[in-house]
Each structure stands twice: as C-alpha cells, then as structure tokens.
C-alpha cells in the first residue's frame, strides 16, 4: 500500500480515490489509539452521508468510536470480512481492514482532505502537544 497516494482527515480516516468513488478506512495511528478492535458496525448499502456524518462505529476494548464520513456520498460497498474478523482493522488498516466504499457526491470536498505529508505533520503536532 502506497500511503503517498492516500488522502486523510484530521479525524484519522484515510481515503483512496478510485474514479468517482472513494475507499475509506481508519489510519494506523487511529487503530493504535483505539486498541484491539472487537466489533465494527458498518453503514447500510445505499446510505447517503454528508461529510462529517457518523458513518461507521468501531468498538475496541477501550471505547466505542464514531468514524466520520470523510466526504459526502452514497455507500456502495462495505467490507464483508470485518463482521467475523474485526482485528483486520488493527492488522491491515490500509488494505484488508478498510471499512467501506462510497460514491462521491461532491468532488469539491476532496480538496479539503490532507495529503500524506500534511497528515504526518498533523500527527507530529499531536505528539508534540
């Protein structure tokens, strides 16, 4: 997985653009902060989300956390493996542990996402706090 090709949010979601769709997951930093993931609740197919809406729910041994939609759009695919193997989110956050794919509704919003370099800088900022 080439991280340089991904886009990120400050809420620690990653986005991989695939034409007019976007694959979405949580970052390695996020999975590490959450701890062992024990359950993932994914949105229903066809669900329409606005950027910033709670989309998925990730339950770890520490807490239950919302995953916010990084872009506005419609859910067209969810990762079927997570129901039986939620630990994929910890093990392979950028590939096998991705969450869902959405059809992008407002392509303009893509510009608001961070590139890999900016996200890394943002993480360094958090660590230095």
């Amino acid at each position, binding site marked *: 997985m080439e991280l340089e090709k991904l886009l990120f949010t400050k809420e620690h979601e990653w986005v991989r653009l695939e034409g007019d769709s976007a694959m979405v997951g949580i970052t390695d930093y996020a999975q590490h*902060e959450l701890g*062992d993931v*024990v*359950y993932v609740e994914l949105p229903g197919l066809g669900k329409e989300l606005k950027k910033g809406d709670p989309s998925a729910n990730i339950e770890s*041994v*520490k*807490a239950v*956390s919302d995953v916010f939609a990084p872009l506005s759009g419609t859910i067209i695919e969810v990762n079927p493996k997570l129901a039986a193997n939620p630990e994929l989110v910890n093990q392979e956050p950028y590939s096998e542990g991705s969450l869902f794919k959405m059809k992008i509704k407002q392509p303009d919003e893509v510009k608001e996402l961070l590139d890999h370099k900016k996200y890394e800088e943002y993480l360094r900022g958090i660590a230095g706090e």
Partner: protein
Amino acid sequence: MSPLPDLIFEISREGKTAHGLGASRVQSKPAIDPGLLRTAIAGFPQVSEVEIVRHYMALARLNYSLDQGLYPLGSCTMKYNPKINEKLAASEEFQAHPYTPHELVQGNLELMARLEEWLVALTGMAGFTCAPAAGAHGEFTGMLIVRKYLKEKGDPRRVVLIPDSAHGTNPSSAHFAGYEIREIPSNAEGIIDVEGLRPFLKNDVAALMMTNPNTLGIFEKNITAIADALHANGSLLYMDGANLNALLGIVRPGDLGVDVMHINLHKTFATPHGGGGPGSGPVGVAAHLLPYLPVPRVVKDGGKYGVVFAAPHSIGRIKNFYGQFLVMVRALAYLCSLGRENVRQVAEDAVLNANYLRKKLQDVLDLPYPTATLHEVVFSDKNLPVKTLDIAKRLLDYGFHPFTIYFPLIVHGAMMIEPTETESKETLDEFIAVMKKILLEAREQPDLLLQAPRQTPVRRLDETLAARQPVLKWHKGENR
C-alpha cells in the same frame, strides 16, 4: 489448586439434595396427566445445603466492595452507604404491594412527596418525578419531555447537541428519544463556551445536554450564558446532574437556567450501586415543563396523599408502578440523617478530597487540563513508560479498586479519580503512597506492572478475546 471455586454444576452429584419434601399425605387427583410431568430437570445442579452455602460464600469472598476499601471510580460517585439507609429500606413498614389501596400506604406516599420536596429545594427546579429506574432512564425521560414540549409548541426539532466531555449515556438517550446527535468540542480549558457553541446553534436544535460538572470534573462556568443563548434560539438546556455530589447545597441548577435535569439517587444520595442496583434517576423540570412530567404523580389533597394517573400533557408512564421505592427510602433516610444544614458539607468534602489527590499526584502524573476541578480529577498517561491499564491492574495487587480508565475519551489514557467525601485523609494518603510506588515501579521494574495483577484470584484476563469470542455458557465436560 485453583483459587477460584468450582462451578455449582461441577460439584453436582447425582442424587444429592438440600431438602426432601417426602411424599404428599394429601390425596388429590393430578391436574396434569402424570405422563406429561417431568421428574427431573436436565442439568440442574444436585447439591446439599451446606455445599450451596459454601459455594456462594466462596464466590462472595471474591467480591470487592466499599465496605472493604476505597473505590475511586471517576464519575461513579462510589461513596460509602450508611447502614441506617439499609436498615430503614429493609424495615417492614415500608414493604407494600403496589396495588395496596392508597389510604393504607399514606406513609409511603408521604415519603415520596417529601423526597420530591427535598430534591426541589436542593436543585431549584420546579418539580420532580422519581419514577425513572436509573440515570440513563432519567436522561431518556427528560428528552421525551423535551420532545413532547416542543412538539406541542408546534416546533418539533431534530437535533440535540452534546459536548465531548458529557457522560457517555447522553448521546444514546437522546438518540433513543428520536434525536440526531451533534458533538460540541470542549475548548482548551476543558469546557464549553458560547462562541464555540454558536456555529452549532441552528433552528433545528431541540436541546443541549450538558454534564455539569463535566467528566473532567470541571464546572461549566459559562452555563448561564449558554442557557441564554439556547433559550434565545428556542432550544432547551438539559443538565446531566449525575455529578450533583459536587454541587449539593452550593449551586442550584434551577437558578442557572436549566430546563430539565436528572440526578442519580444511587450516586449522590447513598444507595449501593455498580452492578447491584436497582438505581433511581429522578428528573426535575422548570415550571414550563411541569405538565409534561410522567405519571403517576403523588399529590397532596387536603390532609391526604393521593396519586394522579392521567394528566393531559404528561408523557405518560415510563415505568411500571411508582419507580424504585426502596431507593427513595434510602435517599430520604440519607438526607434526613444529614440534615438540611449539613448537605453542603457533602460537596465541600468531596471537592476537598479530589483536590487533595490532585495536588499530591500532579507532580508524578500529567494533568491535561489545569483548570480548577471539583469532585474528580483526570490525569493522562503522557510521558509514562507503561499504559494506564497497567497501572490500574497493579492497583489491584495493592488491594485498591482502580479508578475509571480511558474515559473521558478526550484525554489520552485517561485516569479519572473520584475519591468522594466519605474517604478519610488516612485512606487518601495510603492511596497516594501506593500510586507513587507504582509509578516508581513503572520506571524501575516495569514487569511488575506489565504482569499485574499477581495477587488476585485470576491474573490479567484477555479482554480482547472475551469481547471477540464471548463464551457465555458452560457445557458439562467442557474445560473452563
């Protein structure tokens, strides 16, 4: 030998029994065809009376309770529960069937009415219902009141705002009542301010649910300005009063512009809780919401107490019968034994104890929000060589129940400590000494923490495996 007692199913032996009833001497025609009756229940444990007693005593000895020691779970207010409350709750005079005619239970009804009067006096709200059976049930009831009120005003709204430092049940209670949730970020001080709230205050906002003092233990000092901003927007202010212990006798939420609130009798007013239950989450409302309180309501008519079962604007029933009556008995017993003039000392001592811990531990633990705190203090695991979980597990080896960990979520590796007013300075000093020792161990012998607990009946449990593959049933012949 395992320090854990065997399961009652494992000590079961065919044919053993605690009591034999013998053959009936009464001649009767069987009501059910004997061919359809079963003579044994498959898998039912067969043990003698003394084995039953010893089995449950062995389980009871594994328990840890406030009667044994400090229980500093943040935001849980695990205070010591005076035994007089239990004595009164167990007294025969208060035991009544809920269908007993009201003229025969005037004392019970008076007790409910007097408790409501106490709660009104302590909070400055216009009226209370004691029907909700727990804190979250109170939140839900409060939000149903908000919903009905706004709907009848012809302005139903969709959104409830909740700060990120609120109790975790608030979003689910509001969602359950049919609302969409928006989270409000705390400012650098760890509280909400009007400027931060303003962008969220649209005309679809039904209410803001604010926990005060919040889960960082910080008093939301902008609450009156926030109440004004909400009211100007046609929205209501809900206050989660589960942390009322910090305010008792000092601040009345009703004077701050709160429209609806709940409190927890089982936290603030000394009823055992945390797995035991039952709880009680009374809801208080300002005058304009009085007609919406749930039924039944206890009312005084002339010299007698009665019960109103229907009211035109009421949200209706939210619980069978009258709520957790014996918890109300405990709460009133607690208040009467304190006396009105001493209630304030509860809050003063709770705040003093928490600040004593804060002062003594802030040199060895990171304090993420330096703002003054009330009844609890939240540290982070920043700059520590181990995780919060390791410290909590090591505390078990020293015989203390750990504090709340990893909550609130806005603090990294949160350690949320609430000693309550009932702990002595000696106990707090002992806890502080143990914490300092553990933090020293963390640097010099981290394995002591990483392998903790060592002194408990079971060592560190695999919480991840338990959550991913829960085994909830034991089958004969299986390894446990």
